[in-house]
């Protein structure tokens, strides 16, 4: 079937099967930041933004993206670059496999709530699993970014 969507700001027309999963659709189009870590909608590695809202691309048919805007980390490099250095300073990137999904959801969080408390950060990112970092380093990174913004 034919679908039209905005991918990272660019209008595209594409062909896909009725059962093509958005995650696979995106990787086929070079959006390699989108990762698969489970098959049960549990890990958050495949997080992308649909019309600005974070969703799990492993759990959506590409067909549903027809007529919508999809953003992956490939399209939000500058917005991400603003804060990910602070996470790097903590060494909390570690293996990195969860990073794109976690960064995408952090972008969504900060757009929705530009000055979150630590508990709000934890709650918003609860659906992003990480097995390396123990999470606290990610939190410290976001916190030091927020502090830096306050001058």
């Amino acid at each position, binding site marked *: 079937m034919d679908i039209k969507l905005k991918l990272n700001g660019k209008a595209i027309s594409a062909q896909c099967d009725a*059962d093509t999963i958005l995650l696979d659709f995106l990787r086929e189009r070079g959006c390699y930041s989108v990762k698969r870590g489970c098959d049960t909608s549990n890990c958050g590695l495949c997080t992308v933004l649909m019309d600005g809202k974070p*969703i799990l691309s492993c759990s959506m048919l590409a067909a549903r993206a027809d007529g919508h805007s999809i953003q992956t980390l490939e399209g939000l490099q500058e917005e991400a670059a603003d804060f990910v250095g602070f996470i790097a300073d903590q060494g909390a990137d570690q293996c990195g496999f969860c990073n794109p999904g976690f960064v995408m959801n952090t972008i969504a969080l900060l757009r929705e709530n530009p000055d979150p408390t630590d508990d709000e950060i934890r709650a918003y990112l609860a659906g992003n699993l990480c097995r390396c970092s123990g999470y606290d380093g990610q939190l410290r990174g976001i916190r030091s970014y927020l502090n830096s913004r306050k001058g």
Partner: protein
Amino acid sequence: MITIQKYVRAQSLEEAWQLNQSKRNRIVGGMLWLRLGRGGVGTAIDLCDLGLNTIEETEDTFSIGAMATLRQLEQHEGLNAYCGGAVRNAVQDIVGVQFRNMATIGGSLWGRFGFSDVLTVFLAMDCQVELYKGGIVSLEDFADMKKDNDILVRLIVKKTPGKMVYTAMRNQRTDFPVITCALSNIGGEYRAVIGARPAKAMVIRDEKHLLPGDAKAFAAYAAENAPVDSNIRGSAAYRTHLIRVLVERAAKELGGM
């Protein structure tokens, strides 16, 4: 892995209903757990174009479209004001924000899942579902109906004055619950709703009028009257124990004890 031959965005409920009469076709709600599906689907019917993704508040009801997401429920000020945050409490530990941005109220209720926090919390209120062919049915009756080929259009929550509390036990914060528990006093009637038994949520009314006086006795009554079973998240005995603990705590939190 599931295979799907065709994807259709229904342009009317009638079209969706017609398509849904074939056993090979299926309505896709939030689309979660796609890769867990087995076998083949003929046509995936998507209701996303039907404007069912809103929560409308009137003087005496909330009308929640089947495609409204759990995240919308969580963030709806009016609904949470009415229920004292019970809805927010019920959904906030469901996997994560991304998941709740996708999972729909229609999908959650239609599945009549045993683990459903959503079914539990709404059974504690005066709720009805609107079925496309079946018309308006109380949520409690709907929960007991067999899955058929009808379509759940919306959930209607009546603003009957009352109070409610939601609580659940989880082994890990975003896991399926071991037990869910909602307790309410709606229009003067006390009821406990117990889910994840692991069978689906059931309503236990305070027929012996133990509340508001005796929280402990009502908790024991609820535990006696909620059949439970074992699964990997907990044994039947533990579930019965939890019902006693959570109902008593909820009753005390509800107040008037």
